[in-house]
């Protein structure tokens, strides 16, 4: 096995060496936002300092250079996720906007009263609320795959829910609360057997697991830049060309049109049809640089390192008395949700922060899942490619101290 270059990696993230509340920072909130390596910041800085100009249609040199860098980023994304063509890669503001795009556009084109959409009980609000809005607009019905006690999906119930009225399945690849890796291959295959397309929310998966959209055969795949060591404000919607071509545009403006007159407007081809207005080309170039960064280390090596770190963290945390884990399914990775008996997650999070340890507490934008487990929230430690066992030890020590404070 190749030695994982952890020291070199940590040097790429200057923020990791800053103190917080007088203590060395332990950053375990990667599920919310990951840190950005110097390489990505430099790539974006270069755009502003050397080639900044509005993309497309410009005849001057800077515009051409910037357009080239922007389209090059799209190619990098296409390659990273194994898309058949870069036409299938649409830049959005994030995962949330990507899912909203599908809800609006796919909804408008294909869905009506009595049609059903299947989601799961472990979805982030971003993969619930857009469908609820569609429910209001188009009168569709939402069906929910239940979650088992161990945090896995009740697949038997999924098969029961699939029926001729089902028009779309939208599920998360990796739960942002439980860490469960869902059997998306099986879900996609079953849905496709009755010609139902599938959207995968990949916000928590794309940075930890190898994703090949053609192998998966998913119809849509959504994710964000800021959880992938890239910039904030940028995300990706991958969509199969056959769907995107049929779907109505969802926002109108510049770039997405071919010609405009007051009598008739015709729309541009893919992917521009879905990119109205000047996109955040700097962040798009940033996401390309983030993918370059991950590839330079190797996602397979990262996955392996993170899996080991995850197991170590789980074992160490298990030794704390009163520890209750949420999410113990067989296949899981990257983040651990837990509660300690008698301690409110807010109190634990506040005190850990005083020790320089950043975790997330609360409902993690998944209130239906909290209701399912009948808890107000959890403490969540989510890991990234730069975290270490030493940091896990600091978390365990921190929690021990929290317990002492509570007597």
């Amino acid at each position, binding site marked *: 096995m190749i030695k994982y270059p952890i020291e070199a990696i940590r040097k790429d993230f200057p923020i990791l060496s800053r103190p917080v509340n007088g203590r060395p920072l332990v950053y375990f909130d990667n599920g919310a936002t990951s840190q950005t390596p110097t390489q990505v910041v430099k790539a974006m800085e270069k755009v502003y300092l050397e080639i900044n100009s509005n993309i497309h249609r410009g005849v001057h040199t800077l515009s051409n250079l910037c357009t080239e860098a922007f389209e090059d980023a799209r190619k990098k994304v296409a390659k990273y996720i194994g898309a058949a063509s870069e036409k299938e890669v649409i830049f959005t503001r994030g995962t949330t906007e990507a899912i909203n795009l599908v809800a609006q556009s796919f909804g408008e084109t294909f869905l009506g009263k009595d049609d059903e959409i299947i989601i799961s009980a472990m979805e982030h609000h971003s993969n619930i609320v857009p469908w609820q809005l569609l429910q209001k607009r188009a009168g569709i019905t939402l069906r929910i795959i239940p979650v088992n006690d161990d945090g896995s999906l009740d697949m038997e119930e999924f098969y029961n829910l699939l029926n001729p009225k089902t028009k779309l399945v939208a599920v998360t690849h990796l739960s942002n609360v439980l860490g469960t890796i869902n059997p998306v291959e099986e879900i996609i295959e079953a849905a496709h057997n009755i010609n139902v397309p599938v959207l995968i929310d990949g916000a928590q998966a794309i940075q930890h697991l190898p994703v090949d959209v053609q192998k998966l055969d998913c119809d849509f795949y959504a994710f964000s830049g800021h959880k992938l060591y890239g910039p904030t404000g940028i995300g990706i919607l991958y969509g199969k060309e056959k769907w995107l071509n049929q779907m109505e545009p969802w926002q109108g403006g510049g770039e997405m049109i071919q010609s405009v007159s007051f009598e008739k407007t015709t729309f541009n081809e893919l992917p521009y049809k879905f990119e109205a207005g000047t996109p955040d080309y700097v962040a798009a170039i940033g996401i390309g640089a983030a993918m370059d960064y991950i590839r330079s280390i190797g996602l397979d090596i990262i996955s392996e390192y993170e899996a080991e770190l995850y197991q170590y963290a789980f074992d160490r945390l298990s030794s704390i008395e009163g520890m209750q884990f949420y999410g113990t399914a067989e296949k899981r990775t990257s983040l651990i949700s837990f509660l300690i008996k008698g301690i409110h997650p*807010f109190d634990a*999070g506040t005190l850990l922060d*005083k020790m320089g340890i950043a975790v997330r507490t*609360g409902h993690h934008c998944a209130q239906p899942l909290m209701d399912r487990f009948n808890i107000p929230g959890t403490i969540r430690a989510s890991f990234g490619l730069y975290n270490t066992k030493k940091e896990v030890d600091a978390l365990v020590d921190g929690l021990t101290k929290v317990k002492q404070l509570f007597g």
Partner: protein
Amino acid sequence: MTIKEIQDEIVDEFSMLTDWMDKYSLLIEIGNELDSFEEEHRTEQNLIEGCQSKVWLHAWLEDDKIRFMADSDAIIVKGIVSLLIRILDKRTPDEILNSELFFIDEIGLKEHLSPTRSNGLVSMVKQMRMYALAFKTKMEN
């Protein structure tokens, strides 16, 4: 004691503690000592829901003074709730409406009353002032 004097007293109590752990230990202790909340008042109407923790606030009028009873599911929040009650309980509506709360800042717990810390405390203070305004209007009529 006036609202200002009680706040000065609290600032004094905390000023002796320089270590954050001692400060939070005291806050946890204060939280644990808060008068128990009468269950009949744990209603939807009295609930102030923060993103991170919940606060329950009940208010009533007693001899032209406003009385408060409150609770939280998080102990640190409960500690601050307890301090707020020590300062604002048994006051006239005008005293509350004219008060300025500076103790949180001065004891170094400012982050808990910032609007970004969605623990329900900001809404609780707002709600206490709303009660003062409502009781004042009621008393004037």
